[in-house]
């Protein structure tokens, strides 16, 4: 084998190398590779995707607002990534199990999150916002990349059990540098585990541009591990849906893991604690604003005469309702009692912790707090 490398990507022209279904102006493009995964997509499905994205953007904005108002400790906005999240998540089967990072609000929405689920962790009430078994989704993961290995282990379990489920790991462009993510590819490939890796390349890891992690397409890493990969326009919800269907089909058929890089852009700050003005300029933002995923699908639907103003108003109404419910759930939350700090550390009794709990209970009682 002779020396070669994958081509250098100019990150400003990132989308040149991606698979697409919808052009930025909404035009439907032929895609011999992906079209077969979209045979069943009709206007209803498109409108549902549109609604998901609109609702998601509204929920996301409400999260930011709640944080600004002191109701949440932090919020990690996903504005700009609606297509990447909704498109890939809508391809999932109910039995699939998702291992997200912390920014997958859209995936939560698709998995059926309840209004309070979006905020419970960010508010600091609980470590995990929802029941993983019910949502078929692991708790949000803050340690960058750690969840990718969990997905692989889950996938190994699926293979054991002989079912047709797939384990899905979501992670960012920054995460690709972590050892864990690479080990996850090694293990998934070695065991041919039914795992789909979804890398949302949103161009930033806090203040670091993706070029610091890699000057080459991230999707180009997977083949070296024996994992087929696809690089898609992450602001094209149909491309994301189709690519994810390809990946899931591959994994579900027992052919092992697959990898998707969805090239998108984080329009907001890293989190509400971040000030992106310190490290990026408006030109790039402007460039990506013109590639907005919701506007693109809207343009497509409008051109096809499948989107009325009434419908758009109705969707906006649904979005506002979702945001209202989320806000109400947030404001209505009560904090667990002091001794709850001791709950759930162990599944079985632990004498040392029991002693501490007793001591602290006595202390609180002595000071009239319990």
């Amino acid at each position: 084998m002779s020396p070669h490398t994958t081509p250098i990507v100019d990150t400003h022209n990132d989308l040149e190398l991606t698979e697409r279904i919808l052009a930025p102006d909404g035009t439907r493009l032929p895609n011999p590779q992906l079209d077969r995964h979209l045979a069943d997509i009709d206007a209803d499905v498109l409108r549902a995707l549109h609604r998901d994205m609109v609702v998601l953007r509204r929920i996301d904005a409400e999260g930011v607002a709640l944080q600004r108002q002191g109701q949440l400790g932090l919020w990690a906005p996903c504005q700009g990534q609606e297509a990447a999240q909704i498109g890939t998540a809508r391809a999932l089967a109910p039995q699939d199990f998702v291992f997200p990072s912390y920014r997958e609000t859209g995936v939560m929405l698709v998995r059926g999150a309840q209004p309070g689920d979006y905020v419970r962790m960010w508010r600091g009430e609980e470590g995990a916002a929802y029941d993983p078994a019910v949502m078929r989704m692991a708790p949000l993961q803050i340690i960058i990349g750690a969840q990718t290995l969990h997905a692989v282990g889950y996938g190994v379990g699926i293979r054991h059990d002989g079912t047709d489920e797939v384990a899905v790991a979501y992670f960012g462009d920054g995460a690709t540098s972590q050892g864990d993510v690479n080990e996850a590819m090694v293990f998934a490939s070695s065991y041919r585990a039914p795992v789909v890796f979804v890398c949302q390349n949103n161009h930033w890891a806090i203040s670091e541009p993706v070029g610091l992690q890699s000057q080459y397409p991230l999707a180009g890493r997977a083949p070296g591990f024996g994992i087929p990969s696809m690089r898609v326009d992450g602001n094209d919800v149909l491309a994301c849906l189709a690519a994810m269907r390809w990946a899931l089909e591959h994994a579900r058929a027992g052919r092992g893991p697959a990898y998707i890089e969805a090239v998108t852009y984080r329009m907001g700050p890293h989190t509400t604690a971040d000030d992106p003005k310190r490290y990026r300029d408006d030109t790039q933002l402007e460039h990506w604003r013109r590639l907005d995923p919701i506007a693109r699908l809207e343009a497509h639907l409008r051109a096809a005469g499948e989107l009325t103003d009434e419908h758009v108003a109705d969707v906006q109404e649904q979005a506002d309702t979702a945001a209202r419910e989320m806000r109400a759930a947030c404001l209505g939350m009560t904090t667990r009692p002091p001794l709850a700090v001791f709950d759930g550390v162990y599944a079985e009794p632990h004498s040392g912790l029991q002693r501490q709990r007793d001591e602290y209970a006595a202390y609180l009682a002595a000071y009239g707090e319990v």
Partner: protein
Amino acid sequence: MAEMTLGKALNAGLRQALRDDDKVVLLGEDIGTLGGVFRITDGLLDEFGAKRIIDTPLAESGIVGTAVGLAFRGYRPVVEIQFDGFVYPAFDQIVSQVAKLHYRTQGRVKMPITIRIPWAGGIGAAEHHSESPEAYFVHTAGLRVVAVSNPQDAYTCLRQAIASDDPVIFFEPKRLYHHKGEVDLAASLADAPPMGLARVARSGTDATVITYGAMVGTALDAAAAAEDDGLSLEVIDLRSLSPVDYGTVAASVRRTGRVVVAHEASREAGMAAEVIASITELCFEYLESPPLRVTGHDIPYPPAKLEKHHLPDLDRILDAVDRLMDRPNSLSGATDAGANGGQR
């Protein structure tokens, strides 16, 4: 009852656990065809097949992270870390995931993972093959930590660890792998003492030597030697390092009033510090002299030819006992100058 080595007892414990519950799966480097570098998983691949005895790629974080995913799926993974010094690449997955997921999810996601670690020194090994990292895990809330010292406990505690719904770091003193003892393979787990309890390995009245792992044997030897000098030492084998069974410990200390805590691991913020701080809290008025630590020095594990000057042995335990008995507080004067001196 059958006589067998500690290594064979572990093998029997794994076999039994695999038979008892088909959710039990083993993961590790070289555990399949080879049966592990210490042969602890010998024969298990043949009996249970490659779906349950899983040779892994060479990456410890990957192994433990995969085990976490299997636990999410309802499995009970048993991980073998090949040597103590190779657990550190998995530290993040252990501390941030294995230890915290049950708490994070308020008990909704169980992490019944057992991480077996061939452990500690005394075998003349190369660097990184003689580490005693137990204090790191004891300090990590959410984990249980067990260290065995004899074949029977190896068999029983390993089965208990695997059966536990909590994650257990399970230390196997590798220099005792070939050490023999009686094991009751037929006894039911229900009859066994709970995993969290200490064991009085020898009763005595003059002083209590508290230790665990391979040092239990050393302490028993010391007790035998002390007996010749007319001294009666009680030896406690902690077995469980988190939680520590302070009921058993305190009862002994209240009788003897004198304590030595011994381990191979280095001293600063080690397990002996924990035991002594707790004993001081629990038994202060019973103490007739300051509890002493007999431990490895605060040095990286030294090259093999020098390890005997690092590992506490019988003589160092007896020396500490002498100081306890004859010259209470002898240290407080002796080290004073040192403490005030080289302060850097």
